[in-house]
């Protein structure tokens, strides 16, 4: 079980990276740009994704994954 926990840690880190990449390239930033062109609902969504959800998900997933890989959640 400990080996699976550690291995899955790499997946959480990768997931954090993927979420970060897609939120910058296809979700957050394009929505913000559309929002600055006058589309209010796009701007609100862009702000929620870029400023709130992305930093939380990316930060938490990367640190959690790192801890998992380091064996912090191993059962002793």
């Amino acid at each position: 079980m400990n080996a699976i926990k550690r291995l899955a840690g790499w997946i959480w880190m990768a997931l954090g990276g993927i979420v970060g990449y897609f939120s910058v390239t296809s979700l957050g930033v394009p929505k913000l740009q559309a929002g600055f062109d006058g589309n209010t609902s796009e701007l609100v969504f862009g702000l929620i994704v870029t400023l709130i959800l992305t930093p939380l998900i990316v930060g938490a997933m990367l640190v959690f994954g790192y801890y998992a890989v380091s064996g912090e959640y191993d059962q002793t």
Partner: protein
Amino acid sequence: MSVAAPSSLRQVIAASSAGTMIEWYDFYIFGSLAPIIATQFFPQNNPTAALLSTLATFAAGFVVRPFGALFFGRLGDMVGRKYTFMMTLMLMGGATFLIGCVPSFTQIGFWAPLIVFTLRLLQGLALGGEYGGAATYVAEHSPDGKRGYWTSWIQTTATLGLFLSLIVIMLTKISMTEEAFSDWGWRIPFWLSILMVGISYLIRRNMSESPSFATIKKEGTISRNPIKESFGHRLNFKYVLLALLGATMGQGVIWYTGHYYAMHFLKNDCRVESFMVEEIMTVAFVAGTPFFVVFGWLSDTWGRKKIMLTGMAIAALSYFPIYKTMYSVATNAHRTELTEKTTIQQSGVREEGIAGDSVIMTVTHREFTDGTSYDEKVTTRIHADGTSAQPVIKASNHLNSKDFWMLVGLIFIQVLFVTMVYGPIAAFLVEMFPVRIRYTSMSLPYHIGNGVFGGLMPAVAAYLTMNAKGSGEVPLQVDWYVQGLWYPVIIASVCFVIGFLYIDGTDHRMDD
């Protein structure tokens, strides 16, 4: 650890739950009255202010909750649980009452949205401090082996607070005309808060400090810097992350899907009559609320992890079929129209103040063989040059009794999912952290998971739905109405896997 006798424990729970329910009530009346608040406090023709309105309504109160968790959590771990959640109660009551007193935009201009925005932030801060305090306080009075049961009473308060807000709003609406409610009547639910908070203050005033906190205070082992101890040390921070990613994040999206999004979905996507939706939600909440206690009690023997993760998995797997059935039941595609009863009335009015503009209003009434009726009001503005603006359509379905109860059943199932993931979570969180930093450590993951991931759910899902529908007559996707569900389904699924792999579900003792 010393624990309270059952009779005194019941008093502790009654006093804590009453205050927490009032705080949830205060927090949710703002959301339930959001459309009226937007018209009262925000200019209608200014996009920047409209944006501020949207942000204030959907996000600010939720996003600020983790900051309240940090501020009041620290205070609760240093000064005491009781005094801290007395403070949050007063702060919430004061802010809510004042929202009901703020003059409208037409009276004081931009001061109105600014003041309301500030008061909404104070509401969020107060709620961020309240829940962790109440849950910790009750848990620290409870014996091992029954903590899930006793703390589950606190877990009923969020649903009861939303339920109370709907009841108060419905009663206020019934007691006056629609115009009077839009004009000033909407302020009554805010004003009532000060009365409820006053009563709750009197009940809570005579409560004693939690036994666990009193002990560490006597021993002089209170934390000097709970924030640093909670989040600055890997040994504790790893559990904060696990609580967030393996429990509260999934719980948050399931709570808001089963409560707020279901309501939004019925009103906006299925176009069920607003008052009828409130009736459906109210009945489902009343039927579902006792299950918070049932699952809290079961978690003492079956284990918190099993119940929470089962709820999460079933919810993630069944949201799409449930919402597709809701849409099919609530809309009219399958009904046979009684064409002889259809009426269409059209009227044209020349608009005052806008030179040459006129407004054409078409009112349609349809009836169906199964007893359902449908009303639609289409308002189209025709400009002086002959062009017309996008028509504004207001439609509502008044459902027959069978479909009404079918929807009650489908919402009830979602409330059951909520009770499974939310009933045991207070006990689960308090058992993760040591007494000296418990308030701070459990409050932050709870309010990020529930407040931020969950609280933003209706706004994100509504956006995804709107995007899938598009602005044309024909929707961009056939099943556009369920696209918003990807947000809770993905988050609950990831949370399930993390919780399943990493949470140790065997230990139900508190480290005091």
